[in-house]
């Protein structure tokens, strides 16, 4: 606002832009609003590469530590143990990133950006489904990194490329289903700290008390009983079978655990989200 003329010009421009009604005739459908909000999630991933790096470094660290520190003791050789470990670490990596779903959601809720989304005439769950598109991309990136590092360390899957792709897709699908747990918890707990705190505790417990790092055959009875019903185990077993070329017979139970998660947590999340306070 250096001169009066500029102010007048600016004023005219403001009035012109506000006067234009360029509103599209058709309201966007559920798919396009979800995709628009998915794009938002992808931009956010791009804007904070550090976060993505931290998320992928965790499974890589686990892979290195377990392969070289305990691998020989567990399986006789590090190389042999890696064939066993990689599918499990892949699933673990996806699970650790999944807490981010809840953290991002609570951050949005606190900033009031959801108030704006909720006041728009769009398909109501779009912000939730859009965020999940971003999460799936994160799971893909993490999985590709884990497989690539594994291959460099000597991972030679008998299942071939198709088996590996199948194992990765299963892990990503499981991550998508688990994301709904975090969506629900995010809506209930409301603060990022609460979600990430609970997430770390729960996931550490559930991933260690599973068949990710060792076969449960030598575990004490009470632990083995828990590991046998741990849904993570079904997914790890199936992913392992696919990658090691042991057929698809283990995929069924894994898909059932995925379906159960969706059946329980999708309606819970939507109910909670749509509920007027």
């Amino acid at each position, binding site marked *: 606002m250096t001169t009066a003329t500029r102010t007048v010009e600016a004023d005219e*421009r403001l009035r012109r832009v506000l*006067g*234009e009604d360029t509103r599209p005739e058709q309201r966007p459908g559920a798919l396009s609003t979800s995709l628009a909000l998915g794009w938002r999630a992808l931009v956010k991933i791009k804007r904070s590469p550090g976060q993505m790096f931290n998320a992928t470094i965790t499974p890589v660290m686990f892979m290195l530590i377990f392969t070289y520190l305990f691998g020989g003791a567990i399986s006789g050789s590090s190389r042999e143990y890696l064939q066993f470990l990689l599918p499990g670490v892949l699933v673990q990596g996806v699970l650790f990133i999944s807490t981010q779903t809840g953290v991002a959601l609570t951050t949005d809720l*606190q900033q009031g*950006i959801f108030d704006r989304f909720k006041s728009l005439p769009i398909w109501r769950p779009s912000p939730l489904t859009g965020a999940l598109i971003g999460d799936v991309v994160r799971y893909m990136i993490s999985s590709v990194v884990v497989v690539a590092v594994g291959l460099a360390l000597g991972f030679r899957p008998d299942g071939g490329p198709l088996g590996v792709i199948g194992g990765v897709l299963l892990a990503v699908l499981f991550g998508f289903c688990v994301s709904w747990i975090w969506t629900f918890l995010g809506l209930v707990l409301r603060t990022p700290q609460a979600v990430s705190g609970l997430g770390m505790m729960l996931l550490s417990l559930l991933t260690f008390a599973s068949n990710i790092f060792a076969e449960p055959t030598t575990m004490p009875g009470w632990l083995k009983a828990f590991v046998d019903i741990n849904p993570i185990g079904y997914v790890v077993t199936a992913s392992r079978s696919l990658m090691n070329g042991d057929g698809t017979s283990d995929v069924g139970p894994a898909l059932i655990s995925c379906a159960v998660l969706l059946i329980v947590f999708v309606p819970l999340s939507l109910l909670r989200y749509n509920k007027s306070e």
Partner: protein
Amino acid sequence: MNTELAVETVGVVKSFGATKAVDGLDLAVPAGAVYGVLGPNGAGKTTTLRILATLLAPDAGSARVFGHDVVRDANRVRERISLTGQFASVDNDLTGVENLVLLARLHGYRPAAARERARDLLEAFDLVEAAERPARGYSGGMRRRLDVAAGLIVRPQLMFLDEPTTGLDPRSRNEVWDIIRATVERGTTVLLTTQYLEEADQLAQRVAVIDHGKLVAEGTPGELKASVGRGSLRIELRDPADVPEASRILVGALGAPAENTGRAELTVRGTDPRSVARALGELTQTVEVDDFSMDRPSLDEVFLALTGRPATSEVPPARKPGRKQGGRDAGPGRRDTRADRSKSRADTAATTTEETR
């Protein structure tokens, strides 16, 4: 004048636990103007707005926006409104242009059209230079403008602005005011909440004063001031030595105490123009008057008269960004209530004594 109602609420009640944030609120907001909802922190302004924007369902009563019920016809309402909340509802990780493109896409714009609309708005809102920077680094004023722009992607019939200038410096505040005026000129009804009396006075054609979730008064800013009735007279004398004599004359003519408010300045509160004219005539016969002015009562005085306590008229300290449930917090507006109230009683008492004498 358009007689259509943009907003009509009847007996709206909303409680959070034991706190009644909105307590039987009746509002009638005519279309085509700026309507101000004025009240201190915790008066129920934000809760009212969230109910009207379909984010909260009222516990009792009904609320309509252009005739559509906010609960039963929520989608009809959403097609007609835009909401800019009290805490910036832009995405800090996204750039200015990305924020607007996202909203345009959600309104159904094709990608190219969305980018064009975003560019036009950024230019009109003086944000071109910051267009490619993440909103995280924006100043308070820039963020507010981006936030308001995001609410004007499509021209809404009714725009809600929750305390649009809270925490802004005077220049940014004026810019936001200009945008609001231009928006109304283009046919959008604006409903804004504010705790600044000056803001309501400057922008709003009608004002609702609410306190503890209830409507305390409603009308044009002029009517509200008139309901309090009187303004104050300020007189500047040439010679400070005349103060006692002038004071005696004024008290006699106006029946109200004259305060010595400056070196040679006297102020008499609660006067009407006719007796002031008479008093000035009497005064100028004996003392020399350099200057005089008559102020109409400010909305501050209106608020004090209506609620028995002053509204905040100063910029409150920056609050933590966080979700605010309307009505829960008793903010800075509540401080010093008792002291100010007893002071105002003392003033009133003094006036009464003088008048009955």
